[in-house]
């Protein structure tokens, strides 16, 4: 584990010779525009596709001149809130992934490395077992609290050394805490079968049945996380030169890292609280996006948010199509599509190391 981490840290990129600044800028703007168009297309698809297919003029009618027809109700009460939740959660996960990869300078990092998923899972299980919570709505706060607590523990343990939090100590502390929490979660669900029965449906990660109110509950945390995250882009650019160089350029490494962890926790924590643990968005999206933005975080962060939202919606739509009339949960679809794609990406060329 350590070998791979340090390897990721030390490898230098051998990218193609940099194009002139104007060309780079044009390429980045074009990339962002394409991403925005893809996201819009995914949104339309997410509203249109489902057990009852809705034609484009029906969507237009429901959004701009609703009259209470059946299509209008389906769109306004079910599809649109679900799509919104997908955009929020996917964007948050993509952004959190780019942030954590920047802060740990580790291309293998995803938000789960801070123990967010396992912390949320453990608190949800406690909520079910001890407090008898059984609705998705009720899980949200347990999951959010668990994500916060876990990442605070990981961050504290990762900072005990004299040098404060470093990429490697954070990753190792995350692995240890995640293992511990997973074991405790297992212990609880094995003691009580009813808890297992409720928990296993939360644990796959899905957008179904978690609509408007749930997005409403976490949106402010999400917004705060996104603001802090976007604001940290210049500091992240400095950090990617190494802690010492960043310090000599006048950045407070410790403050940047603490703020970064706060942003990641808010983003990934609220996404996990709303949808359950969803893997792969945070890991894959920054790699895809980096191919046209390059390493500059001022471009990488917004592009990751857009791409994350598009990817999550796309996976959700695919999950609604493949096993009609049922649904495949978005977390499963993402892993089944994302896995081969990731392997292909790894084989095709050199990973852009950070």
């Amino acid at each position, binding site marked *: 584990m350590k*070998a791979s981490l340090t390897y*990721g840290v030390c490898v230098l990129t051998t990218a193609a010779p940099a194009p002139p600044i104007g060309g780079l800028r044009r390429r980045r703007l074009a990339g962002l525009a394409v991403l925005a168009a893809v996201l819009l297309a995914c949104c339309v698809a997410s509203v249109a596709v489902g057990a009852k297919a809705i034609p484009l003029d029906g969507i237009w009618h429901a959004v701009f001149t609703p009259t209470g027809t059946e299509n209008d109700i389906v769109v306004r009460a079910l599809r649109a809130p679900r799509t919104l939740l997908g955009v929020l959660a996917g964007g948050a996960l993509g952004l959190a992934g780019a942030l954590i990869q920047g802060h740990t300078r580790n291309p293998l990092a995803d938000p789960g490395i801070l123990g967010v998923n396992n912390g949320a899972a453990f608190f949800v299980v406690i909520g079910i077992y001890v407090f008898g919570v059984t609705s998705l709505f009720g899980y949200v706060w347990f999951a959010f609290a668990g994500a916060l607590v876990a990442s605070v523990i990981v961050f504290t343990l990762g900072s005990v050394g004299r040098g404060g939090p470093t990429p490697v100590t954070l990753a190792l502390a995350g692995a240890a805490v995640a293992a511990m929490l997973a074991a405790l979660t297992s212990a609880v669900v094995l003691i009580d079968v009813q808890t*297992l029965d409720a928990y296993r449906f939360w644990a796959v990660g899905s957008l179904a049945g978690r609509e408007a109110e749930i997005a409403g509950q976490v949106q402010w945390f999400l917004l705060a996380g996104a603001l802090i995250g976007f604001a940290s882009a210049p500091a992240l650019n400095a950090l990617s030169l190494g802690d010492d160089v960043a310090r000599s350029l006048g950045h407070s490494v410790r403050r940047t890292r603490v703020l970064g962890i706060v942003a990641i926790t808010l983003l990934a924590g609220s996404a996990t609280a709303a949808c359950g643990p969803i893997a792969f968005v945070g890991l894959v999206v920054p790699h895809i996006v980096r191919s046209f933005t390059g390493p500059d975080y001022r471009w990488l962060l917004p592009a990751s948010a857009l791409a994350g939202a598009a990817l999550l919606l796309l996976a959700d739509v695919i999950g609604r199509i493949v096993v009609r009339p049922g649904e495949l*949960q978005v977390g499963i679809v993402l892993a089944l599509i994302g896995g081969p794609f*990731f392997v292909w990406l790894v084989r095709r060329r050199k990973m852009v190391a950070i």
Partner: protein
Amino acid sequence: MTVLERGAARVAGRPALRGRRASVVWRPRYVLVLTVGIAALVIGMAVNVGRGEYPISILEVLAVLFGGGDSGQQFIILELRLPRSLTGALVGGALAVSGAITQAIARNPLASPDMIGLTAGASAAAVFVIVIGGGFGVLGGFLAAAGLPVAALLGGLLTATLIYALAWRRGVHGFRLVLVGIGLQAMLLAVVHWLLVVAEVFEAARAYVWLNGSLNARGWEHVVPVAIALAVLLPAAFLLAHVLGALQYGDDTARGLGVPVNRARSLLLLVAVGLASVATACAGPIAFVALVSPQIAQRLVGGARPPIGMSLVVGAALTVIADLIARTAFGGTELPVGIVTAVLGAPYLLYLLARYGREARA
């Protein structure tokens, strides 16, 4: 070369025993610690066999083992508890040796055979058998007929091979191997999650027990395969292990010392994978034993790399004691042994991390 060896081996209190081609240094500390370790293992197993709903004293346990005792005691000990304890000891030992080899090859105290996907593959196959059984065409029928352990073994080995093959591009690059492993393991994990959702709740509970690494209801049919694997692979490990010392200096130096680095490493890795996959097939993925045991063993006996023999004993003792706790400490519920090893092992990982951080900065 001979002169050098003679000079180097002459340490006070450590006479060397020389054969024609091999030599062993007599190390009192190693022998002492090994003896204590074996004693702890035997006592742990005796207590584990004795404790339970129907308690049997250690003396009676010994009596039964030497052919005495009444028929009820004989049944409980010989058919129920002893095979379980033996499975635990053998599985723990196999995992620990596999971890010791992997860590020595990778020159990294955090390496473990899990990294190449054995656990994920075995888990997916095992949960498939538990949840779907024979009801999924040819594949399901084949896996169900083969039985849970064989299916898990095949799943693990197949995944490891696949990851290795996909990571191959004019040689295997460590970093690429890890990345491909991540991709494939995520897919297999998604399959496991999906199976858990579609399963009946009691099947899901059974699958969950397996996923955590459990020794519940393990009988002689589980003891035999692990014993055979150890009987074949352990001597191979000892025979190959003498090059591990040279590998510690790095590939170039090892080559300079006359070690065929690539061949030695592949063979050792094969032994490690064999041990870990058989152990996982029998008892499920028991967490942290492969990671922690070699490190404890190394701290107990000293030296520059995890010692294989001592790791075996530590792994076996650790697993048996963890099983004792999992079986008896929580009233009526028997937890899977893997939960106890994870709860004990995770803090140890943190301790390693704290130490590691200090060394890295020093």
